[in-house]
């Protein structure tokens, strides 16, 4: 705990606020000892004077020096604020802990009471208590203390409740540790840190509240004086000597800020993990996208047919700034998509599939950096600066379907409005026409009672229906390309098939190209004609979907296939996995990124990165040792596909 507080105080903001707080606290101790004499010396010849060299901020109605009074008042102001905070924390802790110790019913009652009390502003509670405890110093301390108790109680309750759900508390319970013991030995030490932080911030609040009460005349009573009292007296003379009011006000603000900022600084550091010192080998930097050498050796087979291509991309790079140099999730992807063609992109998570899709859709967010030597959609260059015409083209012809239909619709807008705005914006329709189009599109994606559904909110749709509505939104225009990023991952199996069949039928009916991103090989094989296998930000194999079963040449493709369980998989044995871990996009090795996991890897593989070269017609591989797999995979995948098809019929 102490180490983390120190870390917080090493940040610039932390250091400055800690210095401020130290000064305030030091002044609170020292000033009353040193200067009480000067502060209380009455001088009838110097009444209500303005600032002068003898009296820096003037004198009061008894000729006392206001500067020294201000300094000495630090003591009482801080002392009272701390006392009130102490009372507040203690009462809050008791109220917060009681629900977990006493019977359920009493606990609930206490919680309800705290909830009601929390709704009232602190100052109002403080005034209420000030009436009960009487006007004066003691009354004000009690009042402010009790007024801050409810919010502490609420915090404590929440913290205790969260801790109680932790496994180690369950373990302690099982071990027979009693309620009180659990609380004192296990829970309280673990929630001490946030409580101390809140108490620090709370002390700042108490200081301000006390200044308020004293200013109103309900707090410290003469002849005693704190900052609020000085302000109260100074305000009457604000015409004669403005500093008499401004200086104590400034003192209150500075002291309040000091407590506040220290608390905030520590809270911020607690929220973030401690920086790890002395890390291992420095991660290898990947050349930045802009300076990277383009991978131009292999020209894709579809090159000659570019005029027919919906989408063409060459040397696509996506990079993000990272703490240790740029992270490059996509490193030189090149391929083309023909009209009406369905292409799957497969690979493990982190292989760069999604970033590739977002880059193609030009949706990579700052600070991501996208570069390519060529990016064309429907024959139009997409690398030049964006224009209105390009927006319109993309808005009507380039559709996206995202992974999580729960989160991809705006929760506060009706489905109809969300669909219609595409047509209103890009097709020049009015609201009525656009809504009619939206209803038509919902019917096209087989959503019954389309008109009624248009008026509903996303949360009133089921998951599968939402994903169909998302596809419906994509076909509001007349898309030539639908990019679907894991469109079925968040759905259950029966619904998955509906969505896939819908995508397939849209492709057939409207001759739309589909780029289907998925980690699921069987699913891709079901919908797509061609498959791109990605590993560590590059395409390692580009092959016809029919070749997946046993005709894949890259060892990674083969390993992926072998990891797909099928009807013949022995259930008593552990599931096959691709051995090793995927390459870290922040430190991609020099040679073939797959070499460390590849059974065929040799010196050449760790030295040089293989290019994506065409081996057969329509089959590209990036491997130094490409070879066909055994026949077993082919059989098993066909079986698996058959099984999936059966499942689809059943649903």
């Amino acid at each position, binding site marked *: 705990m102490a180490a983390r507080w120190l870390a917080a105080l090493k940040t610039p903001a932390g250091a400055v606020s800690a210095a401020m707080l130290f000064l305030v606290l030091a002044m609170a101790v020292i000033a009353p000892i040193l200067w009480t004499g000067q502060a209380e010396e009455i001088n009838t010849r110097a009444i209500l004077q303005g600032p002068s060299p003898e009296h820096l901020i003037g004198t009061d109605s008894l000729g006392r020096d206001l500067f020294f009074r201000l300094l000495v008042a630090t003591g009482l102001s801080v002392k009272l604020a701390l006392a009130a905070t102490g009372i507040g924390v203690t009462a809050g802790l008791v109220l917060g802990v009681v629900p977990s110790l006493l019977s359920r019913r009493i606990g609930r009652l206490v919680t309800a009471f705290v909830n009601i009390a929390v709704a009232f502003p602190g100052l109002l509670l403080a005034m*209420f208590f000030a009436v009960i405890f009487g006007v004066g110093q003691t009354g004000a301390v009690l009042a402010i203390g009790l007024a801050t108790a409810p919010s502490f109680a609420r915090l404590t309750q929440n913290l205790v409740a969260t801790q109680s759900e932790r496994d180690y508390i369950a373990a302690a319970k099982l071990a027979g540790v009693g309620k009180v013991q659990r609380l004192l030995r296990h829970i309280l030490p673990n929630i001490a840190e946030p409580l101390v932080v809140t108490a620090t911030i709370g002390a700042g609040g108490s200081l301000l509240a006390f200044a308020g009460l004293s*200013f*109103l005349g309900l707090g410290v009573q003469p002849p005693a004086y704190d900052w609020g009292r000085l302000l109260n007296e100074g305000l009457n003379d604000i015409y004669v000597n403005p500093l008499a009011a401004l200086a104590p006000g400034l003192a209150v603000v500075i002291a309040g800020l000091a407590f506040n900022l220290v608390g905030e600084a520590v809270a911020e550091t607690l929220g973030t993990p401690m920086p790890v010192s002395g890390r291992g080998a420095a991660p290898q930097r990947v050349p930045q996208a802009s300076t990277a050498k383009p991978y131009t050796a292999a020209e894709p087979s579809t090159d000659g047919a570019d005029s027919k291509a919906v989408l063409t991309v060459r040397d696509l790079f996506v990079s993000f700034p990272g703490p240790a140099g740029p992270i490059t999730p996509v490193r030189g992807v090149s391929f083309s998509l023909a009209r009406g063609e369905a292409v799957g992109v497969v690979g493990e998570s982190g292989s760069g599939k999604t970033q590739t899709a977002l880059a193609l859709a030009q949706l990579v967010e700052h600070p991501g950096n996208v570069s390519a030597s060529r990016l064309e959609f429907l024959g139009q260059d997409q690398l030049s600066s964006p224009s209105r015409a390009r*927006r319109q083209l993309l808005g009507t012809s380039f559709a996206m379907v995202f992974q999580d239909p729960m989160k991809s619709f705006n929760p506060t807008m009706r489905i109809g409005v969300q669909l219609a705005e595409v047509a209103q914006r890009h097709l020049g329709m009015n609201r009525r026409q656009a809504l009619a189009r939206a209803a038509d599109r919902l019917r096209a994606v087989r959503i019954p009672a389309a008109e009624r559904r248009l008026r509903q909110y996303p949360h009133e749709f089921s998951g599968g229906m939402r994903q169909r509505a998302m596809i419906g939104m994509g076909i509001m225009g007349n898309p030539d390309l639908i990019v679907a990023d894991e469109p079925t991952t968040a759905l259950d199996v029966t619904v998955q098939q509906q969505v896939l069949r819908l995508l397939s039928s849209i492709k057939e009916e409207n001759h739309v190209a589909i780029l289907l991103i998925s980690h699921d090989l069987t699913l891709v094989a079901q919908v797509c004609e061609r498959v791109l296998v990605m590993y560590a930000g590059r395409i390692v194999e580009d092959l016809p979907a029919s070749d997946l079963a046993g005709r894949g040449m890259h060892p990674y493709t083969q390993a992926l296939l072998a990891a797909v369980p099928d009807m013949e998989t022995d259930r008593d044995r552990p599931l096959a996995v691709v051995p090793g871990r995927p390459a870290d996009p922040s430190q991609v090795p020099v040679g073939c990124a797959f070499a460390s996991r590849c059974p065929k890897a040799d010196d050449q593989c760790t030295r040089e990165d293989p290019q994506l070269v065409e081996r057969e017609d329509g089959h590209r591989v990036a491997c130094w040792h490409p070879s066909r797999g055994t026949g077993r995979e082919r059989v098993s995948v066909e079986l698996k596909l058959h099984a999936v098809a059966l499942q689809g019929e059943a649903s």
Partner: protein
Amino acid sequence: MSIATRFVADATVSPWTGFVARRIGRLVVSLWVLVTASFLMIHLIPGDPVRAALGSSAPGALVEARRDALGLNDPLWLQYAHYLQGLFSGNLGTSMTSDLPVAQVIGDRFPATFEMAGLAFLLAVLIAVPVGALMGVLTRGGRRRPTELAFTSTSIVVAAIPEFLLAVGLVYLFAIQLGWFPVAGRSDANSYVLPVVSMALGSAAMLSRIVRVEMLSVLGTDYIRTARAKRLPNWMIYFRHALPNALTATLTIGGLMLSAMVAGTVLVENVFAWPGLGSTIVASILAKDYPVVQGVVLVYGIGVLLVNLLVDIALGMLDPRSTIKES
């Protein structure tokens, strides 16, 4: 509670009705706690409140007569019953210093406080929403670090200055030095400027930070990515898709702020000698005029409860899911 909830869920009434019913139920319980607390307040004061109010030199007979008149010699339960009965008929008792009915005192003073708090809240929202939303858009995804730093530090400092201290500063600058506005009092429109601004600035700073943070988190959501994938122009993404969502989340905290503002009037009214409830309650506490204190505490408390209720209902209307999420 669970039975009631299940009943509401099973019945064919819309979830909206159930939601409003639950909220009003909560309001009634809170009101009862408030009324009871304000009733007990006078009995929790150590010693005799009448003796304290009249002073130690007052003759015993006078104190007794006043105690009788106030009903303080009745058994506690009877006093409570009388108190509740009085509340329902709008009778809040009589001031011990001016002999005016408390209801009349409150009626005279309430408009000044209501105007000040209402205008201040309006001003705070009018400043905070555009500024916070703009800062959110400008600094999204870690853009423009220096702007972010300048905004965050300025707003932290402004928010940390309590209203009444800000008021003192503003009075010095704009009333005494520049003479643009009156120093105190409530008269023409000019006299409203300083009290309202000093109430609004701190809240505006705090609220704009919250709006910015909410805006940032909304701009990072999947549905904003969807909106961008639809190639909507930026203004539509920010105003139509992002802002309403950012504001629903802001509203809860805005409500807390508004109820804190209700209490903040007490201090600011005393800086400006504003003839509202705040200066009344302080004067009454100092004069030990307990019936007035009781009445004003009740009014402030009801104000806070109403604000909370309105915020909850507004939330329910803005966010179609909140009725479902409600437990």
